[in-house]
């Protein structure tokens, strides 16, 4: 049978060239390699396994660290990785024009999510770069007494929502620039740069179910906010950020923003419900659990709980079937307790026992139930092993103990 020329959507068969068997990463997640032995031309030196063994993967409850790509976003990006590969800054041919059209469409999608004008959006490599551009503006300020207020919209560790509208009001009345890092907030809570009087905003792609390696900075035009570029070169993005704009990534960011705008209400309702369930179930089954962060001004998808008398790292290790974190991914390499918890006045020992549960668009009720069950089970077990817990059960006040030095 002949493939009809006009037919677009054919069934897919992907041959994976096996090559040498990949080394197993040391943390225990195994890559499952699909070996298509009869078809491949490349001989494998490893013994041809009938089918690669697939280990069971842990549940993902760490959405503040990063989010999976929404299938709608991937679908939007793929054409630009396959056929529409032009440089968006090429002005002389159709490849450039179509790529530029996609880039501008993405810009419009990002702008409409935050109530901005597309001319106020500059694409960057992520929220970190956007933050650096915004802060550097301070040094480029003309007046000697100009200052900048920079506040995170939603904290990534404890999920607290800052009163952005109020801060914006104060800043604009004092003629002070207001920057906010909205990486965790964009697409999850309603944001409007004009209502909240925001002058600069950082946006991150991979926090809103978009691709990694892309972000944007919103820079207000009226009144004009002057920023100094971090990287100079060909003058792309109005001279604010030189370098070829990565069309597939920005298309993904735009698609992610559009999906977020459509799904915001539904996701928020669902995530709130799941968050309530998680907190209620844990609090009901375990004593001495503290939720960090303001309970009112709180984004429901980021829950930070401190389990007294249990060491946070050991609980994380015990919960090996669930991908969790204590504190932010950017500080996870160090053993210091979270600076955020310290700043809100949490006791040192409670700060060490904090775990962050992240609930996102794709989290299911089953996953939450499983996480709660395992968490309760392991906290109970770890507390049984803890001499501090024993002392507390006997009624000893830990703060009254005089620890001796050896």
């Amino acid at each position, binding site marked *: *049978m002949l*493939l*009809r020329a006009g*037919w*677009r*959507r*054919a*069934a*897919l*068969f*992907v*041959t*994976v060239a096996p090559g040498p068997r990949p080394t197993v990463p040391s943390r225990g997640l195994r890559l499952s390699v*699909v070996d*298509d032995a*009869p078809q491949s031309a490349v001989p494998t030196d490893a013994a041809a396994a009938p089918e690669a063994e697939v280990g069971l993967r842990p549940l*993902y409850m760490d959405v503040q660290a990063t989010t*999976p790509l929404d*299938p*709608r976003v*991937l*679908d939007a990006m*793929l*054409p630009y990785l*396959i*056929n*529409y590969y032009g440089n968006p800054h090429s002005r002389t041919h159709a490849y450039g024009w179509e790529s530029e059209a996609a880039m501008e469409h993405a810009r419009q999608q990002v702008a409409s999510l935050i109530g901005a004008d597309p001319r106020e959006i500059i694409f960057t490599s992520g929220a970190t770069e956007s933050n650096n551009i915004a802060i550097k503006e301070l040094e480029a300020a003309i007046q000697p007494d100009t200052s900048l207020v920079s506040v995170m919209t939603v904290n990534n560790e404890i999920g607290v929502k800052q009163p952005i509208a109020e801060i914006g009001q104060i800043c604009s009345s004092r003629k002070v620039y207001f920057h906010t890092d909205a990486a965790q907030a964009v697409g999850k809570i309603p944001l409007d740069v004009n209502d909240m009087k925001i002058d600069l905003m950082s946006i991150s792609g991979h926090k809103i179910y978009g691709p990694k390696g892309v972000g944007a900075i919103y820079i207000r035009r009226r009144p004009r906010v002057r920023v100094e570029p971090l990287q100079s070169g060909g003058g792309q993005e109005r001279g604010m950020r030189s370098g070829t704009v990565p069309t597939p990534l920005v298309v993904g960011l735009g698609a992610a923003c559009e999906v977020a705008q459509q799904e915001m209400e*539904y996701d928020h309702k669902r995530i709130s419900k799941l968050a309530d369930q998680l907190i209620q179930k844990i609090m009901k089954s375990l004593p001495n659990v503290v939720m960090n962060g303001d309970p009112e001004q709180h984004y429901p998808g980021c829950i930070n709980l401190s389990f007294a008398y249990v060491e946070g790292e050991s609980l994380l290790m015990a919960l090996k079937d669930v991908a969790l974190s204590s504190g932010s991914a950017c500080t996870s390499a160090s053993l210091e307790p979270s600076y955020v918890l310290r700043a809100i006045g949490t006791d040192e020992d409670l700060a060490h026992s904090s775990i962050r549960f992240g609930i996102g*668009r*794709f*989290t*299911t009720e089953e996953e939450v139930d499983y996480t709660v069950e395992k968490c309760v089970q392991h906290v109970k077990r770890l507390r049984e092993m803890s001499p501090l817990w024993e002392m507390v059960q006997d009624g000893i006040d830990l703060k009254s103990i005089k620890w001796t030095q050896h």
Partner: protein
Amino acid sequence: MAASSRAQVLDLYRAMLRESKRFSAYNYRTYAIRRIRDAFRENKNVKDPVEIQTLVNKARRDLGIIRRQCLNDHPKQLNSACAAVEGEAAEAPLCLLPGTAHPLLCPDCGRTRVKVHISHLYSTDKLVIENQEKPRT
């Protein structure tokens, strides 16, 4: 174009749920099924035919996305896909089955088996040179 009938909407709903079940990733699969159910439920009392048509068109686009993404998902998954494309019933649809070594016809549903690349899912027009009657070389 006549507005979509109740039967068509139900067919679309069933087709979307059926395709969503083929996602190999747990999180995508459960999200798709849940979202489709909730969205159709939420809009079940819409009366305005123009609005209904808009929603149906969006659903058709999303069905296309799910189909393409399921095929991308995992090479093994492709093997169990019968890729009948809605609206193109006149053309011979494809079917792939696991284990079989590419016979011309699928033993199960009689459709043609073809081996293709991801670029077919996101294909575009041919280049000018491909339209020439006789190839130059």
